[in-house]
């Protein structure tokens, strides 16, 4: 019978080329994923609205008592509030605030959570200590922790960011740790250690890259939670202080007049929902494409 031959395939020799092809494939899958694209579109629109807010030319904090409590009409697309401020503009500037807070929380908790997760997976003795601390942080509901921390740090934007980031770090750390533990069990890690790789190198070159999938997915969901939580915190009076046009603030302020002037409360709520919806869709899409079950990289 004829003998089999092994043909040399040049592409296989370059690990980077392989990785680049894989990233490209992931990107293409994302572009075809309906939830992801819808979420992406929504988020894009919101980001644009936030960035282009100054284009309205109206000062969100400018009061005009003569024009207060106007329902949505003519120039006032969303109406005016009890101080005559234009709600459409305030909502747009609120987008700036909420998206900024959401992003900061997601990035902060992502970076710190990832660091903790990878360190725990790599150094067993650190693991017990770090995980106990994470468990302690998770012993109270996230929002409660955030309320406490937010109140302690004072009613400012950065307190909300720190408070929420701290609340979500343990959950992110858990996920990264779980992924890193799985990666560690894979055989190529043994090969790397035998070849003399240091712990640092293993963490950065292998554990972290393999955790980016779950990390990214978790961070998008944290972004969504953060938007909702920030609104709740503002509503309770523990957020960026008035007159900052945080969506939660607008709703809190508008609550007293809800019966007569329903529009004050309505639009910011829609805005929050839309932002959270977009991020959730984005996260769903990312999770479907980056599903850890289907992907192992070297």
């Amino acid at each position, binding site marked *: 019978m004829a*003998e089999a031959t092994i043909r040399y395939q040049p592409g296989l020799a370059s690990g980077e080329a392989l990785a680049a092809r894989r990233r490209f494939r992931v990107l293409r899958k994302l572009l075809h994923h309906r939830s992801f694209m819808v979420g992406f579109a929504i988020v894009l629109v919101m980001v644009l609205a936030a960035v282009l807010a100054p284009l309205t030319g109206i000062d969100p904090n400018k009061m005009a008592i003569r024009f207060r409590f106007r329902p949505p009409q003519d120039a006032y697309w969303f109406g005016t509030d009890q101080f005559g401020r234009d709600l459409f503009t305030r909502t747009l500037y609120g987008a700036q605030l909420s998206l900024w807070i959401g992003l900061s929380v997601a990035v902060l908790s992502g970076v710190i959570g990832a660091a903790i997760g990878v360190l725990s997976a790599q150094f067993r003795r650190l693991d017990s200590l770090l995980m106990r601390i994470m468990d302690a942080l998770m012993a109270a509901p996230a929002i409660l922790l955030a309320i406490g921390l937010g109140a302690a740090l004072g009613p400012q934007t950065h307190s909300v960011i720190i408070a929420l980031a701290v609340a979500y770090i343990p959950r992110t750390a858990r996920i990264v740790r779980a992924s890193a533990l799985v990666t560690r069990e894979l055989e190529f890690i043994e090969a790397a250690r035998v070849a003399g790789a240091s712990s640092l190198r293993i963490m950065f070159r292998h554990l972290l890259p393999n955790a980016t999938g779950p990390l990214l997915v978790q961070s998008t969901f944290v972004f969504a939670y953060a938007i909702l939580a920030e609104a709740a915190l503002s509503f309770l009076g523990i957020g960026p202080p008035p007159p900052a046009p945080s969506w939660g603030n607008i709703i809190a302020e508008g609550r007293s007049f809800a019966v007569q002037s329903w529009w004050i409360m309505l639009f910011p709520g829609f805005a929050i929902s839309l932002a959270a919806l977009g991020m959730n869709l984005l996260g769903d899409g990312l999770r479907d494409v980056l599903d850890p079950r289907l992907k192992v990289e070297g």
Partner: protein
Amino acid sequence: MAVPLLEVNDLTVRFRTDAGWMTAVDRVSLAVGEGEALGIVGESGSGKSVTALSILRLHAAPTTRMPTGKVLYGGRDLLGLPMREMRAIRGSEIAMIFQDPMSSLNPVLTIADQIGESLRLHQGLDHATARRRAVELLDLVRIPDAARRVDEYPHRLSGGMRQRVMIAIAIACRPKLLIADEPTTALDVTIQAQILDLLRDLQAELGMSVILITHDMGVIAEFARRVMVMYAGRVVETAPVGQLFHRPLHPYTDGLLAAIPKLDVDVRRLPAIPGSIPDPTAVIPGCRYSPRCPMVQAICRTEAPDLLPAGPEREARCPPRVAALEHVA
């Protein structure tokens, strides 16, 4: 053969994939007599499992187009049967066991529950009677300490024992036909032999027909009376087992036989068939095996060959070889 127990006529099954429709099974026909052991052999992707699953209509519904053709059993076409009647046949008259015993048993139910389920469903037994019968069945499939094992969960059992449990479930209602899809592939070699022995003995005791699907020619040699070879969704050869091994009539069968390591022959390198099975969505003009065939002729590339009769219970899809046979005879 006298009236066959099961007859499959021109079964065609197509799947929808990202790359388009692919034909997994292309006009496959087979017949199994009462008490007969039929072997179906082929590589992964040859369509043998899909054929078997289609008999009981167990394919994954959304991605499969409803199979066309006929599956005749007891005078009825199973493909056209209402589901309620189909379910009455599944597990009681035609039973099936699968390749991976680890994942084929439900991890949260006891052995007694899983065996008993068939009995309660098809024979109307109550829980107590079903449990007793389950213990008997475990004895029958040679599981030691059956009375204790029956209350355990699958994860406590080894692979070989789980496969015996699967067999127990399958034969619980004394089916007329057992379809075994690669039952030994996931097991150690020594366990393989035990399971095959068990299947053979059960077949004799219960007078059951068996369709055994495998890629292992050794298993076929030990078990089957008649063999069907499949390649790329089509039947390429059928023959009684002795004749298949002694005088194959298709180049693919040659290749399969040559790849079996033999104890008495010293080879440096095991022969392998060059190339690989074709992309399922690709359309190949002529004979599907032609790209890999060592004795390919010009006509093979242009005309798709039919399955030609080549003697009693023999068919082969290779006109040059069948013709050569006639010349010899």
